[in-house]
C-alpha cells in the first residue's frame, strides 16, 4: 500500500521522532521531521504537508501557541501529541483548532487509525449530502436518518446533534463546542442537556446503547463519532 500523504512531525524528543518516522514510513507516508517549533513552522510553510503531528511541549515555544500560529493559515488536520493526560490541556488544544489528540504513551495502531481517519475526512468534500458510518446513513438534503436502511425518528435537536457529530466524524468535539453549536452561545455550561440528548440518541441509533459504537465518549473532554 502506497500512501502519498506527507506528514510533518514536530517533536523535540529525537527518539520519539525516529520511531514515529519508522512507523509512518512503513505505512507508505512521506515524513518530514522538525525538532523545534520554529523549524516546524518553517517546514509547514515550505512543504504544505497533508497532516501535522505536533508535540504540545516544545522547548522554544508553547505548543498551544504553535497551534494557534499554524491555524492562522494551515487548514489541514493537526494531531496533538502530549504526555500530560490533562483534560484542560486537551480541551484547550481542541479549542485552538487541533483536529485530534493522543496521549503519550499511545499504541502505533491507534495513531495510524487516527491519521487515516483525519486524512479521509479531509478528502470528503463539503457538499456531500449523504453521510455514512457503519450501518447509519444521514441524508442531509432530505433530513432523513436511516439505520440498517430503516427510518429512525429523531427530534430536531437529536438530528442536529447527530449531524454535527457525523460531519466531524472521527474528530473529538468538546462539550462546550457541541453546546455552542446546537444550543447557541451562552449555553456552553449546560452539559446536562447534552448528557440527556446523547443518551436519547444512543437509544435510537446504537445497536447496544450500553456499549456504543457510533457515539463514543471521550471522558472529561467530549464526544466523537466513530
Amino acid at each position, binding site marked *: 500500500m502506497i500512501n502519498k500523504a506527507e506528514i510533518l512531525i514536530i517533536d523535540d524528543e529525537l527518539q520519539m521522532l525516529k520511531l514515529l518516522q519508522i512507523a509512518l514510513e512503513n505505512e507508505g507516508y512521506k515524513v518530514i521531521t522538525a525538532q523545534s517549533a520554529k523549524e516546524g513552522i518553517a517546514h509547514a510553510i515550505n512543504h504544505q504537508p497533508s497532516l501535522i503531528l505536533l508535540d504540545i511541549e516544545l522547548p522554544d515555544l508553547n505548543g498551544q501557541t504553535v497551534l494557534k500560529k499554524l491555524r492562522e493559515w494551515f487548514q489541514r488536520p493537526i494531531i496533538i501529541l502530549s504526555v500530560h493526560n490533562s483534560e484542560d490541556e486537551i480541551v484547550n488544544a481542541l479549542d485552538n483548532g487541533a483536529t485530534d489528540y493522543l496521549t503519550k504513551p499511545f499504541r502505533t495502531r491507534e495513531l495510524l487509525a487516527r491519521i487515516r481517519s483525519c486524512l479521509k475526512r479531509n478528502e470528503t468534500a463539503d457538499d456531500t449530502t449523504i453521510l455514512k458510518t457503519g450501518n447509519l446513513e444521514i441524508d442531509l438534503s432530505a433530513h432523513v436518518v436511516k439505520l440498517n436502511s430503516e427510518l429512525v425518528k429523531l427530534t430536531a435537536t437529536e438530528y442536529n446533534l447527530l449531524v454535527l457529530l457525523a460531519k466531524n466524524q472521527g474528530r473529538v468535539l468538546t462539550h462546550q463546542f457541541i453546546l455552542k453549536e446546537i444550543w447557541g452561545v451562552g449555553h456552553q455550561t449546560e452539559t*446536562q442537556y447534552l448528557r440527556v440528548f446523547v*443518551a436519547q440518541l444512543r437509544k435510537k441509533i446504537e445497536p447496544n446503547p450500553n*456499549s456504543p459504537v457510533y457515539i463514543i465518549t471521550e471522558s472529561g473532554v467530549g464526544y466523537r463519532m466513530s
Partner: protein
Amino acid sequence: MTGQFIIVSSIVILLAVACFFSTDLLGYQVPALLLLMSVSIAAMLFDIWPVIFMATLSALIWNFFFIPPTFTFHVGTTNDALLLLMYFLVASINVVLMSRIRRFERIARDKQEKQNTVKLYNTLFNSLSHELKTPLATLLVASDTLNHGGNNLSESSKKELLAEIEKSGLRLQYQIENLLNMSRIESGTIKLKKDWCDLNELINHILAKFRETYPNRKIDFEENQNIPLYQLDGGLLEIAIENILLNAILYTPENAEIRIVASGKKEYCEISISDTGPGFPKNEIAFAFDKFHRVDPMKTGGTGLGLSIARGIVEVHQGTITLENITSGGALFKIKIPTASSSLSIFR
C-alpha cells in the same frame, strides 16, 4: 487555648467560693492544699500557660480572700508568708515537671512516627523497585535478545519476545499512572472539575475498556433508570471505580463474577462493586485502603496503591468508601458521595 484559660479560671473561682463559705470548717490552710491539688490535676490535662496562669491566680486568691488579714494582699505573719512562698514553689515545680514529662512523651511519639515512616518507605521501595524493575528487566532482556540473538531466533520466538515487550510496556505504564495519581492526591492540590455526570454512561464506558482487556471476566451492570444526573468529577471518579474493579479482577479467581450497582437519591449517589471471590481476610479489612498495604505482598501486578487512590478520590468529593465481606462470600465496596443532582431526567 482560650477554652483552657476559661476552664482553669472557673475551677479556681468555684473552688475558692466553695472554700470561702466553709472557712469555719476548713480554716484557711486547707483551701491552699485543695487549690494546689487542682493545679496539679490541671497540669496533667492542660497546656503550660493556662496552668501557670491558674497557679498565679489561685495563689493571689488564696492570699486575698483567705490569709488573714483577709481582703488585702498583705500577709500578716512570717508563717503565712512562708506558706504562700511554699504554695508558689510547689505549684511551679508541678508545672515544670509536667511539661517535662510531656516533652519526653512527644519525643517518644515522634520517634515512633519516624520509625513508621521509615517502615512505610521501605515497603514503598521494595514494592516499587519490584513492580517497576520486573517489567523493565523483561523489556531489556527481550529487546537485547532480538537485537543480538542473531539469526538463531525462530519467527515464533521473535513474535513472543515482541509481545513480551509490549506487555511490559503496558505494565510500566499502569504502574507509573498509579504513582502519578497517588502523588496528585497526596499533594492535596487536586481540584475537582465537577460537571453533570450520567453514572450509567460513565460505568458503561469503564466496562467497555475492561471487557477489551479482560474478555474472560464476567462483569455485570444493569442501568439504573431511576437516577438523575449528578455533579461529579467524572474523570476522577472513573479512575476510582477502575481501581476497585481492577482490584477485584486481580485478586479473585477467574470464574468469580463482579457486579456494579449505581443508585442514589436527590442529594447523594452510591456506587457499589461486589464480587463472588473469597472476600478479604477479616483482619485485613481495616487496612485495605492504606497506602502500599497488600494482603499478599508476594503477589505481583499491583503496587498496593489502587484502593488508596480510590479512597483519595472519593474523599476529595467529600464522600465515603467502605469495604465489607458479604455473607454469601466475596467483597463489597460501597462509594457514597453527597452531591447536587439535576431535575432533568435521561429516561422519560
